[in-house]
């Protein structure tokens, strides 16, 4: 998990999915549940940031076009 920031958006999503499944299976203990949740939330936040960054890049790319070409 130390190299999570380098993981792709998709890899992070997959890991969150895995965490959700583990939590739903109910087979993990309380502490582990909490840690998994925190990890999941951290990943979600990172994903959110990646999406935001992507959206910004997209907006910038689109915006530049709007500004320059029309």
């Amino acid at each position: 998990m130390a190299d999570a920031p380098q993981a792709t958006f998709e890899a992070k999503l997959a890991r969150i999915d895995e965490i959700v499944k583990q939590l739903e299976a109910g087979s993990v203990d309380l502490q582990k549940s909490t840690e998994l949740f925190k990890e999941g939330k951290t990943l979600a936040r990172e994903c959110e940031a990646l999406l935001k960054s992507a959206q910004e890049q997209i907006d910038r790319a689109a915006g530049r076009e709007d500004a320059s070409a029309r």
Partner: protein
Amino acid sequence: MEQRERPYQVRTVRQFTAGMAEFLNRQPWLERIGIKGEISGLRVFGDGHLGFSLKEERALVECIAWADWRRSLPEVKDGDVVIAVGRVRIHPERGAYKLYADELQLAGLGELFLQYERLRKRFLDEGLFAPERKRAVPELIRRVALVTAQDGRGAQDFIKTLRDEVPFVEIVLIETRVQGEGAEIDIAAALDQAAAREVDAIVLARGGGSYVELFPFNLEPVVRAIVRSRVPVLTAIGHEPDRHLADDVADLSFGTPSKAAAFIARAWLLARRALDERTHRLDRAIHEIILHHVQTLERLSSGVERAAMRAVLAKRTAYRTAVDRLDLRNPQRVLSDNRERALRLDSRLGDAMQRRLERETRGLDGRRNALDRAGTRFANAASTRFQRTTAALGACDPLAPLARGYAIVSSGGRVVREAALLRPGDPITARLERGTLAARVEAVNDDG
């Protein structure tokens, strides 16, 4: 001989004529054909159309001609040599065909036509018409050289169309004389000049005109100029159905200048549309991707929260159950039971001891009573016996009779029981209850 041996089919007249009509219709070269001959038997009809026969030596073709909207027919008379241009049709009811001409070209044209045919054959032999020789016309023509007559209608149509549709396409206008003696030289020069310009294509345009007027576009200088052009050449000459050798060697040819302009404009419009469409799809695709990711992320993010909440809730429920069970087993009851038992035992202990003491007290009291009774009894018995004995003793008191008045007589210290033992005069002593008497015997009577 051979024909007689060949199998044959029988047709009705209608079938045959219909088949022939169909056959003719399928011949492209008959779609529009110019037939050169001498007019004879000219008839003028009220609505302005003409009927005549075209003759050449002993051959004859029946012809009907009329004016269309584009041009009027020239004045003709019997004996004129014309080229009638039009279409061949079968008349089933007469079993004959006719040329339906909408154009009549007057005398001398016959020579031009021969020249046309000659040139055409030569160019064809040179392979100038071969598609593989032709240059690729760029899809998008941004700068075009328009070679045309000064203030010609063709030029105006072309320019207007482009201005309207794709105003940004630059038109390099190269004006030239397009008809009259030696026009082909001017046109060729103009084409060479155009080819030298930085253009994407050259459009050779000319508005409508008669065959003769348009004839320079069949001539070799023009054809050669087109062939040698560095830049693709598009022709847009005269009326649509007419074809010139310039059209045949051009990389693309259009019936009218407007159509050439429309072609150029259309390429741009298509490109614009394609660009817009791609841009739109690009935006939509990325939007959908982002939306998909956002939704997936939201689903997973809330999912992880829900799952964690549920996991904790399950733990809390398990905890609650355990605690409830523990509280149910609070030793308070055990404690209370034990306290009651201890109190009961304590109370029994006290009671037992108290009872014991009471019993002992009672026992002691009983014994004390018995003792007292026994004491009283033996004391009483002793007293009774003492009383009885002393009473018996009292009854034996030898002096007791004295109390009843008796007296004890003694003489000489001896109690006198028999009178005879004494004589009168003997001293005697009489003891009374209280005191004694000294006396003498006076008489003795022994019968007592």
